[in-house]
């Protein structure tokens, strides 16, 4: 049985943004949307998280930060880019310091469009990420299995 779908813990990182998506992400935790129904917890700690939720674009300053946070997450892990800024850089894309979307630095698995992304869209994105997460876990296990098999 695969439990990762039942208990996705999220790390939320906000890059260069107008904080719009940021607030919408937090809105998901409110009683109206209540993502804890799905076992979602906003952990604030990469070591506990399964999903890295990035809002806002990536700039020169936060590249190492985003990379480090991703490094500190345990496998399997997925990255969800929330909002147009996280996807492409959005209205900030022409700024002198902005590199672009999150996919410039990290392997993004799910893109959630919108400016700002609606809570429903964010939840939908997370749910899609769960399917990928499960897939990753399976392949990781297969890999481990074959490695062990080869060892024998």
């Amino acid at each position, binding site marked *: 049985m695969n439990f990762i779908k039942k208990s996705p813990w999220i790390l939320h990182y906000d890059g260069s943004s107008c904080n719009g998506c940021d607030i919408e992400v937090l809105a998901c935790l409110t009683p109206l949307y209540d993502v804890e129904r799905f076992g979602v917890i906003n952990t604030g700690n*990469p070591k506990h998280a399964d999903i890295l939720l990035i809002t806002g674009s990536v700039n020169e300053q936060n590249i190492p930060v985003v990379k480090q946070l991703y490094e500190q997450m345990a496998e399997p892990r997925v990255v969800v880019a929330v909002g147009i800024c996280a996807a492409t850089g959005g209205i900030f894309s022409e700024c002198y310091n902005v590199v672009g979307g999150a996919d410039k630095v990290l392997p993004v698995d799910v893109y959630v469009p919108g400016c700002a992304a609606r809570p429903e869209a964010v939840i939908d994105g997370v749910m899609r990420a769960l399917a990928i997460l499960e897939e990753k876990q399976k392949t990781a296990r297969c890999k481990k299995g074959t490695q062990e098999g080869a060892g024998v």
Partner: protein
Amino acid sequence: MSWIAALILFPALASVLLFVIRKDRLRNAVCWGSSLITAALSVWVTYRYFGMGVSFSFPGEGAIDSFMMAVEVLAAAYIIFVGIKNKKYLICLFAAIQTPLMLWFELTRAHESGAAAGIVFDKLSAIMVLVIGVIGSLICIYAVGYMRGYHIHHEDYKERKAFFFSILFVFLSAMFGLVLSNKLTWLHFCWELTTLCSFFLIGYTQTPQAKNNAFRALAINLGGGLAFAAGIVFLGLRFNISALSEFIAMKPETVVLVPVILLCIAALTKSAQLPFSSWLLGAMVAPTPTSALLHSSTMVKAGVYLVIRLTPLLGSSAAGKTVTLIGGITFLATSLLAISQSDAKKILAYSTIANLGLIVTCASVGTQEALWAAILLLIFHAISKSLLFLAVGSIEHQIGSRNVEDMDILMRVSRKLSIYMLIGIAGMFLAPFGMLISKWAAMKAFIDSDNILIIIMLVYGSSATLFYWTKWMGKLISNANRKAEGHHTFHITEEVPIFVQAALTVAACFCFPVVSRYAIMPYLSGLFGGSAAMPIGTNDVNIMLIMLSMLLLLPLGFFSIYKNDHRRIVPVYMGGENAGDNKAFNGALGKTRKLELRNWYMEKYFGSAKLTYWSDTLCAAILCVSVIMLVLGVMGL
């Protein structure tokens, strides 16, 4: 009989020898040899006389008395001389009153009274002899290695090693005499001898601070000695009693309480209870073997030994209540104070005072199980505390600091030392180890004797104890993963005693039921009559031993797990700003800043500025009130 004389005299002889020898190598060898012989003698004497105990008088006691008087006069002359020279007139006053008083008493009255044995060796003396002999000798061996490094690190101090070693052995000799004497005048002589020795040892470095602290120790302990002398004279004049055993056999009436309280004041000064504790904190300036000796097996233990001896007279009497209360307050206040300290030796000093407070409290409650706890506390404390002091001494040589905050690098410098240190700390407060077993018995004893106030102090004090020891342990283990840096080796004479004491700390926890059964129980049943029962049930003791075994074995079980479970190592979490090596982070304005991790000390709440004055005042007030009440009671008669 001759063996006991040998036990007392041999260290004295060794000290003369050590003083005379001027060659370092030879002296070290002699020190090794005499330490081993002293330890062997103490074990042999215990073995020989353990079963039946022995009490006897030396032939020609008059000669011994005369010799002691001569030494006393010389000592008093010396004290007055240095007192005047250094403008410390208080000690001159104490010496000038005390010595003539004792001389007058001994010359006029002492021989008229009683024919009690001069030397008594019973189960309690046996325990004390073993503690002094074994722990004390180990400390002396350690001193050989320590002093070698000490003068390399502190070139500015004048080298007086011969003097140092010889005083160490005089100290042991005096302590043996103290725990074996039954004649009060002899007891007092040894008592004053330890005071004088501690004065020399504390002032070893001759820096102004060391001198000052040495004089403080001398003043406080001479004051205590004066109270002791007054107690002896009172006993002799009023009851015609000159032996400890006769004194203990008396009924605790109001008049008897006068000498009891006088002797208790002496004991409280010596064991550094609260209004008198400043000398023990000041004693830290001395080289570490001194601190180890003062704190663990000698000096302060003399004070609690006397209280333990006086237990039958304390009990529920007013004097007993006073001492209990002072001990309880001392335990609570110094445990809280230790939280705010970062100097390792200071933490140890406060912890010593706290534990002595606990022993004093247990001994003065006067019930059987409380006394059981007191004696066990004494044993366990002596072992763990000397281990801790010796380890801290070596740590100071290795890392150049004795601040707890600097000890996070110790695991990299010397893994062995850190582990010894951890064992010592665990021995002081963790569950299956000795101190906690005794504390447990103490709690039970207090609640059985309805001492609610003491119980309250004890539970608060214990939780503070937990705080300051755990944070120290935390510092020690915080760098456990790093590779060892460089090869610091510490001298074999340092390592052997530390290793033996670490082994003893663990072994004592396994062996305490045996000690209890064959030494403490017979002593208690002799004292209280009837058959004594161990306060802690066999079932619980077994569970404790299981826990201890688990603690020792579990780490071994992890080896196999570690072998098969390799994991990805990632940097520690610093909000994504870890600079990569876990030692720094990327701060504002593009600067890389060093990461510093510090423990909590909460000085605003537990600092000595906040607590010392009030707790001292409180204890002094309690003491004064009880003395006044006693005087009024006696006058009323």
